[in-house]
């Protein structure tokens, strides 16, 4: 369930729009992300960083995102124009803004970095960017629009120029839109001067990145985090007209997710609609739950509620037609189905009174005295007082003490106090999976990336590389015994010029001598024993004597064409 009434007085908030629908119905996702720090007056620290992390989170969730940093008025208008021109009828549009925002005469404006306040407030409007203009541009253009405004920071620009800091509730939100403000009424959003990002944007980016969350869940989680981190001083706020669920990252099992989370949403919607006495719409929502076979407690609740809502709708219709008998019957039916629907009982009383059926009205008034609030009870008592002169039952009722109200368990039908909400707990687990990415990152830090396949070695490519690899392997194998390894130094190879033609070898020779004929000499993946004459390309070579895997001596020799070099191998 989402808050409704007190949204009207909101000054600041974040907005995100979600649209439901299966991925097949999705068009493209476009986002425009703006972060303004470099104000001529009152620069901010974190707005650009905020825009960057949101831009990244959106790109990771499939948005084609455009990031604009420190936008002047011209840049802002141009970016928005380009953004709107991209949008097609099946697309999702997301606009994110971090920076200063003000309201003038209940209209919201974003503040470009080159804003210099003129003398008059009216003139100021023409140097700012109108949110209403953006919302108008979004109307009927994309399939759904999400507007997120982190523009409610403490705002000296507004103070200096007698403008109102923060934003007002937009009056022209398009259909299928979700508008989020970074804070609630009477609150100022923190720029978080000790951090790199505002509390709001930081939490929002984290939640957007989480898989399988609906936009409502993203904003709810963000709200909980921001509220907790600011000790309740900042509570993000949202305004939705989305009819379907929108996911930043679509869950793997979208069908199951949709059924369960949608059913919960519809149930909440139905309760709001019921509160506003919009019976047809409430019935429609409840019917959807039943038809979708959501299962569990949600379906049970829906099945219990449908009769009540139908009775209320029919009662209302009958009453409007002047059919008070029909209305009374339906109100009574509704009251039986929900004995705490005190308003239905009063309507029933009225319907009976209009037919002069006093006894039936008094029975209902008795029931109101049992289950109604003190206010309802007093109202019932007043009616009984008026009736007692003409009806002895009313007189008797007025003499009786106020009956004790029923116990709490009776009030919440369908709720089993003392017993967990099993279905609800499954929804929590499904909608808030434990964040595994931190463990993945942790472990990745200790495990090297997957190496590319060693094609040369496997497929017999570069023979020099193969020889080098074999040399390494031999070196490993001979680790335990004294041996000698010969390898060219780096400078040899790059400078080597070979003859292009001719069969005559350009090689030089290294003559290895030594008393111990058992000492292995490793060169180019081959093992040689003393005495040995190796043909080498001209260049510099390193001769390493190795004992127990440690280099115990190193010597460099330079081989030149035709001139043999001698080397005495000694332990």
């Amino acid at each position: 369930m989402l808050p409704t009434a007190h949204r009207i007085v909101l000054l600041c908030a974040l907005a995100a729009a979600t649209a439901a629908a299966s991925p097949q119905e999705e068009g493209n996702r476009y986002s425009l992300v703006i972060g303004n720090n470099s104000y001529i007056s009152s620069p901010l620290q974190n707005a650009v960083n905020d825009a960057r992390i949101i831009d990244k989170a959106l790109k990771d969730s499939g948005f084609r995102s455009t990031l604009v940093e420190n936008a002047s008025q011209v840049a802002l208008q141009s970016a928005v124009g380009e953004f709107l021109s991209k949008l097609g009828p099946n697309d999702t549009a997301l606009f994110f803004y971090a920076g200063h925002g003000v309201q003038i005469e209940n209209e919201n404006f974003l503040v470009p970095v080159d804003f210099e306040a003129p003398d008059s407030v009216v003139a100021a409007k023409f140097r700012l960017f109108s949110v209403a203009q953006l919302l108008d541009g979004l109307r009927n253009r994309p399939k759904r629009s999400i507007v997120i405004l982190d523009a409610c920071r403490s705002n000296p620009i507004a103070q200096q120029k007698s403008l109102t800091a923060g934003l007002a509730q937009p009056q022209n939100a398009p259909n299928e839109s979700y508008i989020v403000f970074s804070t609630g009424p009477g609150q100022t959003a923190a720029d978080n001067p000790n951090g790199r990002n505002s509390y709001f944007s930081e939490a929002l980016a984290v939640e957007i990145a989480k898989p399988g969350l609906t936009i409502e869940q993203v904003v709810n989680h963000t709200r909980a985090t921001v509220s907790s981190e600011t000790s309740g001083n900042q509570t993000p706020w949202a305004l939705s007209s989305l009819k379907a669920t929108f996911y930043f990252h679509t869950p793997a099992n979208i069908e199951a997710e949709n059924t369960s989370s949608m059913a919960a949403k519809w149930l909440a919607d139905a309760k709001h609609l019921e509160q506003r006495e919009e019976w047809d719409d409430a019935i429609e929502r409840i019917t959807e739950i039943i038809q979708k076979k959501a299962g569990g407690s949600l379906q049970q609740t829906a099945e219990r509620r449908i009769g009540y809502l139908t009775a209320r709708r029919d009662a209302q219709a009958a009453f409007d037609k002047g059919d008070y008998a029909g209305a009374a019957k339906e109100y009574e039916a509704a009251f039986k189905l929900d004995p705490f629907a005190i308003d239905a009982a009063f309507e029933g009383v009225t319907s009976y009174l209009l037919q002069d059926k006093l006894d039936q009205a008094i029975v209902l008034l008795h029931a109101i005295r049992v289950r109604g609030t003190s206010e309802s009870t007093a109202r019932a008592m007043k009616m009984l007082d008026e009736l007692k002169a003409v009806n002895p039952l009313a007189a008797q009722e007025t003499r009786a003490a106020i009956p004790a109200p029923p116990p709490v368990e009776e009030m919440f039908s369908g709720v089993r106090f003392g017993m967990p909400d099993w279905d609800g707990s499954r929804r929590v687990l499904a909608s808030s999976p434990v964040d595994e990415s931190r463990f993945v990152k942790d472990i990745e830090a200790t495990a090297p990336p997957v190496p590319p396949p060693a094609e040369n070695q496997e497929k017999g490519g570069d023979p020099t590389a193969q020889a080098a690899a074999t040399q390494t392997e031999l070196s490993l194998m001979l680790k335990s015994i004294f041996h000698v390894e010969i390898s060219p130094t780096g400078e040899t190879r790059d400078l080597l010029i070979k003859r292009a033609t001719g069969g005559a070898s350009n090689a030089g020779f290294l003559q290895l001598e030594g008393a111990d004929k058992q000492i292995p000499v490793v060169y180019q993946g081959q093992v040689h024993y003393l005495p040995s004459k190796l043909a080498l390309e001209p260049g510099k070579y390193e001769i390493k004597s190795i004992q127990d895997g440690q280099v115990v001596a190193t010597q460099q020799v330079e081989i030149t064409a035709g001139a043999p070099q001698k080397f005495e191998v000694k332990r």
Partner: protein
Amino acid sequence: MSPKSPRPASFRFGLALAALPLLAAAAWAAAGWTDRNEYDLVLKIRVEASPQKQLELLNQWKASYPKSEMRQVRRELFLSAYQALDDIPHMYETALEMSSEEPSNLVGVYWSTLLTPEIKGISKEMLEAGGKAARQLLSDLDTYFAPGQKPAGLTDADWQKQKVAAALLARRTIGWVEWQDGDLAAAETSFTEYLQQDSKSAEVTSWLGFVLAYQKRQIPAAWQLARASSMTGDGALPEVWRRQTDELADRLYAAYHGGIDGIDQLKTAAAASAVPPADFQVESAEGIRQRKAEDALNLADPELAAWLRIYKQLSGADGEKYFAETLKPAPLPQLRGTVVRATPADKPSEITLGLSSAQTEEVVLKVSVPYRSPAGPGTQISFKGNADSFSKEPFRLTVLADQENIVGWPDPPVKAPPPRTKKK
């Protein structure tokens, strides 16, 4: 509230309707209301559609009636409102409050258990409380889910199913708490126990994979992570994490094996089984390097390679066993050594050889028929024979060989023919 069945509705309703003051007073007490204003507040909460407004009213109730008999009911309503707002941290706080006031309270214990792994940056105290709740849930499972506690409208089978699910939830949290406490071995056991009951939980499978990875057991970890990422449908990991987990499995496999050749077989096998078969092995990168090195030396110098293999085994911890069970029963491969000493000097039958180096006495070669000529130190010979005895300290392998299996022994010097004398 302890897991007791609520008062029968008909009884309560009857009492509520009664107009007699005495009866009403009794009902009042039974209902648990402090006064009518308290009831008014709760009725407003009941009617309110907005969870945020419900919270405001609940807080008002809490402030006005802090010691209400219905404190736990109130907390349940708080839970419900927070749940509607997806406010997990506050749900958790509320659940802990419930189990703190009444440690056996099923709702408090259940939600504390369920939510403990969901809380980011959880404090040590909260983690401990979550673990305690999970153990409480597990130890009192039979009480909580006794047939008499079954809510009306639920079948016996569903009630039993709920019990199994609660037990699994408790094991999940116990393992999680052990893991976060750094007791990886205990966490591994708990998650393994969980998976024995429910092998299709991608979440717990991946947690087991992480716990194994933290213990540097890359291949078992890769197995579990690959398995977790292979799962689809109910209980599957969210797509983003499924991909990350799959990539991590590759990474761990490659870290151990040196590349990802063979990973597909592992993934196929892991998708089909919760645990690797007993004979499942993956060669380590170090093992591969060693094998390649042996292959290279085998090609370059097979005699030296053969000796290094034998030497490594003999000088290892199980050297004597290797000698008795492997080396002695079969003929030795061809080896090469340098003569250090040959005795007796004129007709040697016992030749001491160095195989790793010319100076190291390692092998004593006993020839069945003494040579008729000596060989000086530094002479290189190749030989085949049978191992006869072995001593580790000092290292000495005695080999019996025939002269025809020894190559490189110097021929006896050719005697100069006697000078010719003229016959007279």
